[in-house]
């Protein structure tokens, strides 16, 4: 059976949440297989991470190199291609790092690529049957993948429960196998997102608006509702892309992580990148004109309505209280 690897993302000596999620995904993808954690990096930090992973994974491969101090996908790809057998099954988180690395890695390993896996249906070691989503979760698909020659599999963050740490794996130093790590893309720096004037992360009640608002002029009704409720206004990404609201109000993986008590999702479909920014199990109210919108699967209370009509009426009633 092919060897199974999980790539461990880490920063400042701490493994990412995905580290133990990939282990439970691996156990569904390749039942019975030993799963090895791969940790790339440089210096003392990576020893800390390797040791932590050894208490969950049956083996940990450490690749320590100056060129790997920052996880530049091109450099990491080279290190993995040089170190892993071509028919390996490699798991990555489907986040901005995994999206950068996974597709190209599969080409260089001449193996199959599965993006954004949300569940595993069946696996016999040669054909893997998984579940994916299309159209921001509006449709689900079964996908088969020939993994007999290896595979790179990007796993959606947050859908597999983190595996309990219950192993005593050995850390194996594979640094000597990393090979040539020269790259045509060089990492320079991280520029932190601007703080902005509003802080939606502290708000207890958020009125959040999505593309369903249709037009910039309509944003006003959302401000009015928030004012009546004593809430703050937040939004989904397309509203920021259109420059109708400032970036500091965006909820999601590429925006802010919020922990309100109450979250009003108005005309938001409920994509995983949006919901990924919503933590702390808030009471979610969704208003959407499409009764099949994925947001209704995660909301506590739903209203099938046109927000352009519903919001002003709700505002008026609240103002009358």
């Amino acid at each position, binding site marked *: 059976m092919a060897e199974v690897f999980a790539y461990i993302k880490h920063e400042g000596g701490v493994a990412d949440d995905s580290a133990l999620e990939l282990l439970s995904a691996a156990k569904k993808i390749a039942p019975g297989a030993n799963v090895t954690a791969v940790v790339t990096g440089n210096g003392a930090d990576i020893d800390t991470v390797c040791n932590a992973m050894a208490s969950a994974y049956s083996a940990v491969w450490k690749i320590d190199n100056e060129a790997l101090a920052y996880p530049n*996908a091109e450099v990491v790809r080279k290190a993995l291609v040089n170190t892993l057998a071509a028919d390996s099954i490699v798991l990555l988180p489907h986040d901005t790092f995994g999206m950068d690395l996974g*597709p190209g890695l*599969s080409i260089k390993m001449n193996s199959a690529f599965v993006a954004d896996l949300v569940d595993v249906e069946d696996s016999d070691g040669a054909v893997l049957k998984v579940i994916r989503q*299309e159209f921001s979760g509006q*449709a689900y698909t079964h996908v088969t993948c020939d993994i007999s020659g290896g595979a790179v599999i990007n796993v959606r963050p947050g859908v597999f429960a983190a595996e309990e740490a219950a192993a005593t794996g050995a850390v194996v130093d594979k640094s000597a196998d990393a090979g040539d790590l020269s790259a045509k893309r060089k990492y320079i720096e991280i520029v932190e*997102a601007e703080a902005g004037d509003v802080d939606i992360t502290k708000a207890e*009640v958020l009125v959040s608006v999505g593309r369903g608002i249709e037009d910039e002029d309509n944003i006003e009704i959302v401000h009015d509702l928030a004012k009546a409720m004593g809430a703050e206004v937040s939004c989904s990404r397309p509203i920021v892309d259109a420059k109708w609201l400032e970036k500091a109000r965006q909820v999601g993986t590429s925006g802010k992580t919020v922990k309100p008590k109450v979250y009003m999702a108005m005309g938001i479909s409920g994509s995983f990148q949006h919901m990924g920014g919503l933590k702390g199990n808030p009471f979610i109210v969704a208003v959407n004109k499409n*009764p099949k919108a994925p947001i*209704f699967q995660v909301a506590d*209370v739903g209203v099938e309505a046109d927000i352009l009509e519903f919001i002003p009426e709700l505002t008026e009633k609240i103002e009358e209280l």
Partner: protein
Amino acid sequence: MEILVCVKRVPDTAENEIEINSDGNDIERDDLVYSVNEWDNYAVEEAIQIVDKVGGSVTVVTVGDDESEEVLRREMAMGAEKGILLSDDAFEGSDGKGIATALKAAVEKGSYDLIFTGAQADDGAAQVGGMLAAMLDYPYASLVNLIEPGDGKLKVGREIEGGNQEINEIELPCVLSIQTGINEPRYVGIRGIRKVASVEIPTLGASDLGLDAGSVGEGAAKVRRVDYFMPEMGEGAEMLEGSTEEIIDKLIELLKAKGGLK
């Protein structure tokens, strides 16, 4: 700068509710409105802005059927000079690698400094750009939201978690996948599309591209979509029913109870 932008025709999810057909093998396509993949519009806009600054030209390419020509024309109305349609029965059933294989062949027929894809397609997997780059052995950066052209290289910003930006320097030629929000794609009206209506768009098939039919399409695909389905929904949200007034009254009671009203 010669820039090639890969674009895809997809159902417009803002305009349509996606439903699954009765056989479960496809989405209901009859009444769908199609448009260019949202991310690709940003990619074309960015290419045009770069060419406006430093000179050169923009070419748009798609792998699709005859109807995909309309998205090429739309992007040409935005300002792309040339369009190329890659179309062949042999491409049908391709996985991401198959699409990237066809695009690679088209890249090699031209001479491009820079290749853009969208970060992901609505019905895709955020994979074609990274695959294409690896096949060409070009450097790649995904989720790009800033580009500053330099001499033989670019400074690019990648959008990462939390809205932070990872700055890289990348050598040309390279492939970049473009993230939404990098610019404001210009509006194209009917008039603009009419202007390019008679521009000839060459159609290339597998043999024109020098591709072995076995390297693309269903036969080559390691990854295959078996069906579309809707999962068991579980509990889901409690849907509030009744007249709008009744719904609002119930909602207000709930909001009061949950601390949603101050």
